[in-house]
């Protein structure tokens, strides 16, 4: 990828980004929180909370891919499960196409579930071992009571073909498939009802590296074909680089930086993003020299507990730039307008001393 903005983006990319910016967001999260209560004793009194997601703001535009990146345990999966309303947020607002879905009851959510789907991380556990592929991919039609013009079986076989599997696999069981094939089955199930948004929670993390690329490419091809928007979750920046239009970086329940893909990879401003980036190998052979120049930032210490996160900036216990103010004031996620290098409207950073 080049360092100057958009020079490598295709025309289609640019068009997508432009139309996205103009239209209303497909999904927006405002101050979304998920505090899991910690209960103790016979009476199950609440004695504290796991602040898994602690006030995140972002939006997803129609047809775009938002990458969501952060270390294990920072709240990515929880965020994904809040967006798909597998969990009910304990604070903030989630809107889908302008409708507030934050506290919708299961009955109200049911029709919306067609529009928001999820692809799961673990291909071993995301397919019911007792169901055939036909009934797994046919479940969306059955549960939502949807009749396909040529019958469900035909629709399922078309979906299998769409994700690169043979329609003959209809009567097979999940254990007969490899990890990559199972993930394709999970994708077919998510796409069955033609959703507008697919939240993919580390969909390739459990796969062999060679198969990861195929599955990421499948996601891309499907997006081009069906005009889907993705929230694509990953634990390192290299996986989402190829597929994302924008990338959000999470740390301990908060978003610390969000930007257009090329801005983020070329001029990250948050120390944590820079640390994550320094761990990403530079893929371009003719730019390998840069890797030597670039210093590898090694993060020391452990991620603090989300039960009792640090005051002020959550990253301060591992930040090499931390100063007094970092422990007393929480830096807001904002566009940088003053300073030597202001950012564009789409690039927001939560740091008192951005680069």
């Amino acid at each position, binding site marked *: 990828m080049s360092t100057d903005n958009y020079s490598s983006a295709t025309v289609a990319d640019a068009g997508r980004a432009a139309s996205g910016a103009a239209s209303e967001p497909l999904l927006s999260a405002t101050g979304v929180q998920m505090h899991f209560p910690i209960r103790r004793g016979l009476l199950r009194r609440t004695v504290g909370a796991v602040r898994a997601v602690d006030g995140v703001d972002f939006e997803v535009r129609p047809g775009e891919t938002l990458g969501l990146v952060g270390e294990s345990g920072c709240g990515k999966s929880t965020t994904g499960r809040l967006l798909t309303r597998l969990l009910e947020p304990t604070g903030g607002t989630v809107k889908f196409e302008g409708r507030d879905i934050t506290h919708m009851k299961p009955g109200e959510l049911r029709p919306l579930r067609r529009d928001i789907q999820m692809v799961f991380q673990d291909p071993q556990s995301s397919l019911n071992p*007792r169901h055939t592929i036909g009934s797994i991919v046919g479940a969306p039609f059955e*549960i939502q009571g949807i009749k396909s013009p040529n019958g469900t079986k035909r629709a399922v076989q078309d979906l299998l073909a769409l994700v*690169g599997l043979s329609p003959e696999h209809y009567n097979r069981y999940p254990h*007969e498939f490899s990890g990559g094939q199972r993930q394709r089955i999970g994708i077919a199930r998510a796409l069955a009802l033609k959703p507008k948004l697919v939240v993919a929670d580390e969909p390739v993390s459990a796969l062999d590296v060679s198969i990861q690329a*195929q599955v990421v490419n499948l996601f891309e091809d499907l997006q081009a074909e069906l005009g889907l928007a993705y929230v694509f979750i990953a634990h390192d920046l290299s996986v989402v680089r190829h597929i994302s239009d924008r990338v959000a970086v999470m740390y301990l329940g908060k978003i610390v930086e969000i930007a257009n893909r090329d801005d983020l990879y070329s001029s990250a401003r948050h120390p944590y993003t820079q640390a994550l980036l320094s761990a990403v190998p530079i893929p371009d052979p003719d730019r390998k020299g840069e890797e030597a120049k670039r210093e590898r930032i090694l993060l020391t210490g452990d991620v603090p507990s989300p039960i009792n996160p640090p005051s002020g900036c959550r990253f301060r216990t591992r930040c090499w730039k931390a100063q007094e103010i970092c422990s007393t004031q929480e830096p807001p996620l904002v566009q940088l307008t003053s300073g030597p290098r202001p950012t564009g409207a789409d690039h927001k950073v939560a740091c008192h001393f951005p680069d």
Partner: protein
Amino acid sequence: MTLIEEAGVGGIPPQPEELAVAARREIEGRSLGRIAWDRLKRDKVAMAGGVLVILLILMAIFAPQLSSLEGQDPNSLNGTLIDPNYSTPIGGMGGISAHHWLGVDLPNGRDIFSRIVYGARYSLGIAGVSTLVAIVFGVVIGMIAGYFGGWIDNVLSRLMDLMLAFPVLLLSISILGVLPNTAFGLSGNSLRIALLIVVIGFFSWPYIGRIVRGQTIALREREFVDAARSLGASPFRIIFKEILPNLLAPIVVYATLLIPANILFEAALSYLGVGMREPTSSWGAMINAAIQTFQIDPEFLIVPGMAIFITVLAFNLFGDGLRDAFDPKASR
């Protein structure tokens, strides 16, 4: 240009590695049930138990044919076979002869072989049906407790703990002891059978319930449950279509292990006089009758005792083998 393209894999359809994996799996291609069956076949002890279980079930089904093969029936009185002076079966050995393969009982000289094969109908039938009752209740309540968690689980789990802590035998005796001779439109034998099934089933469901609850809690965390929820599936559908099919193996295993416990339960109640009663030839009732004369005719006591022992042992050996076959890590 990018990391991904550099890996040199493009497009969707050609997936050489995946196809290779699939091909390999095709050769191995064994379903989960098949794997368990292969393991079970190698477990000689369990297979012996299984064969015995099948023979016992056949014995119960073909009780009339077996009796007539011997040329006897369970209820004819043969006073002439009892020595009037000593009140023991004539000829020693409890009266075993070519006509009475397992001898005759006291004091009426009824044919013990016929009574044993007919007794299998009561023992296996009552234990089997009450186990079915226990499974229906245990599975439904265990799945509800495990799936919903929270206060629902708290209430149901405490209920199961409570029932497992009951002095079950004492309670059953008092319940069965005070019931009238006709109730619910049933009377006599059929009423006693129905009551035994209800009482034994009622007291043994928490055993299944606890196991199912634990398994459900583990299954609830699996992502396919989330997938169903994200499609808008109701809890009812998730419990019965997503979770229940995954419980079939443990249900079969623990049902096989619960049957012998319930056989003993029925025998104990009948022995204590609150279960099946004379002249019905339940094994427990036969022991009850034999206990009064066992010093002069131990054979009458030994035969029903052995019947119970062999049946319970067979089910337990088979059940243990099944458990190991489905989940080799679970025991030992």
